[in-house]
């Protein structure tokens, strides 16, 4: 029973990681790629860690796996936000079929402060 659950979790986790990589290759602009790699890869790593913890059935290993998963859950959104903000400020273009860009004109180009109204 535990072996089946572990194998299933590992397969689901690697599947989600493959989906993340597929999204990073196929999506048309940087911000969609960030969305794909952050969410799906974190879920995949979490599933694989859970599967490995069930496989080893050991408190020390489970604690380490939990620590890695929690660390990824905390740091992945932070890193993605920092990277997306830096990319937007440095002028990486959005996809040409993007319908709305609510940040357009709201960043001060010098101080990088965000305003609720247009700065220009």
């Amino acid at each position, binding site marked *: 029973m535990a072996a089946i659950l572990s194998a299933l979790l590992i397969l689901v986790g690697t599947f989600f990681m493959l989906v993340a990589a597929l999204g990073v290759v196929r999506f048309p602009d940087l911000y969609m790629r960030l969305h794909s790699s952050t969410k799906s890869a974190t879920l995949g*790593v979490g599933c694989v860690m859970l599967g490995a913890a069930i496989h080893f059935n050991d408190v020390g290993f489970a604690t380490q796996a939990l620590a890695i998963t929690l660390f990824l859950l905390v740091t992945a959104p932070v890193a993605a936000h920092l*990277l997306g903000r830096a990319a937007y400020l440095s002028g990486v273009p959005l996809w040409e079929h993007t319908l709305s860009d609510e940040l357009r004109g709201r960043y001060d180009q010098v101080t990088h402060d965000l305003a609720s109204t247009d700065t220009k």
Partner: protein
Amino acid sequence: MIITIAFGLLSAALFLAFIRLARGPSLPDRVVALDLLASLSVGWIALYAVATNQPIFLDVAIVLALISFLGTVGFAYFIAKGAVPWQQS
């Protein structure tokens, strides 16, 4: 059997992430690919620990997760400061 399939799926994922790393087109795209490669490597190491029945390998995954976050934050800081102008290659 299951482990082999999982290794195959992860290899395909690593290959796809490497394609994005090579193609770009902008520096942040490459950083996204590097970040994904690090996450995939953490999963790979956990899988390798299961395959070889050696739980000690998970220490490597912890260190890799810590280092990759620092690397991404460093790159984001570098890009936000405008030290590298964005360019289409």
